[in-house]
Structures are given as structure tokens and as C-alpha cells.
């Protein structure tokens, strides 16, 4: 997805004057382009909800959260259980391979001017609010993520 085109199009829609916008984004890997190549796009969104694809393999996996963290704060993380392999032991740490990452992550960010204080979340994904993306597959437990 062409980030500049998206930016131009969203600007052309007549918004972005007050910053009261929300972004929902699930574009199968194109989120890296949109986030990293846009200029003023992100600060116009008070809330961003996106799915991060190819987490273990993307070469931009470090750059994207760095960019978002400049203007926003992550308030929710959840691993999509639609993954190529059903062996989630590697994620839970029971197999000892704690450093592997889920393939798909669902993230919710809020802009830094929408709150006054923040502290590290004590919630461990999945929370009761989270729901399995694929009902027949096991949920990806992310307790180890917060250790």
C-alpha cells in the first residue's frame, strides 16, 4: 500500500483539522509502509488499532513500534491465533523457547495527549475481553511476554 497516497487521500477527505480521528488498520503487512513512510499522518489519530503482520520476519518490526511510540502509547496487545503452526508451547515458554514471537499481533494505541499518567499494565494477554480469532485453535498465552 502506498503510504503517501493514503495520506493524501485521508487529507483530501476533509478531516485532520481537529485530530479527532481514529484509524483501524488490517492491511496484511502494508501497515509498515503506512506507518513508516507517512509524514504527519499518525498524530492526527487519537486512537490507532492495527494488526501487525509477519512479526518474527519483518525487517521493519523494530522501526514500527519506535515510530508509533513517539506520539502514541500502547494500551493493548493480543496475539492473533491464526498462525501457521499450532504449537504454542514455544510462546508460553514451556518448551524453553521463550524468545520466539507470535506471527500476528493486534495492537491498540492512544495518542499521548489523551491521558495524563501511565504505568505499566498488569493485565496479561489474553484478557477476558480478548476473543480467539480462530475458535478451533488454541489462544496464544502471552504471560511470558510481560516477564
Amino acid at each position, binding site marked *: 500500500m502506498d503510504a503517501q497516497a493514503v495520506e493524501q487521500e485521508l487529507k483530501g477527505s476533509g478531516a485532520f483539522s481537529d485530530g479527532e480521528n481514529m484509524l483501524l488498520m488490517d492491511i496484511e503487512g502494508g501497515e509498515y509502509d503506512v506507518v513508516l513512510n507517512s509524514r504527519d499522518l499518525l498524530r492526527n489519530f487519537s486512537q490507532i*488499532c492495527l494488526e501487525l503482520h509477519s512479526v518474527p520476519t519483518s525487517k521493519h518490526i523494530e522501526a514500527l513500534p519506535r515510530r508509533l511510540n513517539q506520539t502514541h502509547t500502547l*494500551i493493548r496487545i493480543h496475539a492473533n491465533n491464526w498462525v501457521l503452526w499450532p504449537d504454542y508451547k514455544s510462546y508460553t515458554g514451556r518448551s524453553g523457547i521463550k524468545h520466539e514471537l507470535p506471527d500476528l499481533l493486534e495492537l491498540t494505541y492512544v495518542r499521548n495527549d*489523551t491521558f495524563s499518567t*501511565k504505568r505499566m499494565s498488569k493485565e496479561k494477554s489474553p484478557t477476558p475481553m480478548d476473543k480467539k480469532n480462530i475458535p478451533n485453535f488454541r489462544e496464544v498465552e502471552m504471560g511470558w511476554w510481560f516477564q
Partner: protein
Amino acid sequence: MISPAQHPKNAVNEDSPAERQPRRLLVRVWKYIAAMSSRLRPTIDKKTAKLIKQLLVPFDVGHTKAKLGSDKDGRYVLSTEVLRSVKRVYSLGITNDCYIDQLLASQDKSVYQHDVNFCATPNHPNMRSNGSSWMLRPWNKN
């Protein structure tokens, strides 16, 4: 105007046991293929993984969260405080489930859909699509 829950695209399918059987078989086959492919899965070095985890630590900012969307879609957990003040929603990459777009449109928010794949017919006056669909039909060409 119909509510999102009444829209046929968001109807909950209650399959009969006979219909569920092939799906279970399909899931088993998929799991088998997935197990085989797990030998080829990519790995990431420990240092990078640790860094990514540090960059993706969630914070508690004192907002309440709400899950929006259909039962088939568990993706959208949002801050209700921020959502209240939102006037426009940009929905990039929508598949065959546009329940949340319709829901937000019914809450008097303008919804702009980009890259419409399947949910090609916005059925609320607050919804707009750019029509740059790469699959099927954009709503403004119907």
C-alpha cells in the same frame, strides 16, 4: 435503515452438525500441515526479540476498554474515553466483515473505508468508500 446486527452480512451462521463435520476435518488437515511446516518456521534472535518486547509493552493509562465488533471478529478493543470524542474513523483494509464500521457509523461517526475488498456496499449514510477496490466491486460503481 437497518442496524449492523440485522445486516445479512453479519448474520450468525448456525450450522448443523452435518455441516460442521467437514469443517472439523478441514481444521485437522490444516493443523497437520501446520505442524509439518513448523519445522520451517522462521526464528528471530534472542536480542531482537527482547528489544521488540520492550517496544511493545502495554500501559495502563486509566482508560476503560471496550470490545467492539462481531463475535467472529475479536480484533477491536478500544479506549472508550477516546472513542467518545472521535468524529471520523478511517478503516483501512476491510474484508467481508464490516460490522464495526457500521456500528461506528450508527454512533454518528463518519466512517471512511479504504481498500474495500469484500464488504463493498456501505449501508449507512455516514459511511464512505474511496472505491479503490482491488477485488470485486466498489460501492460507487454499482
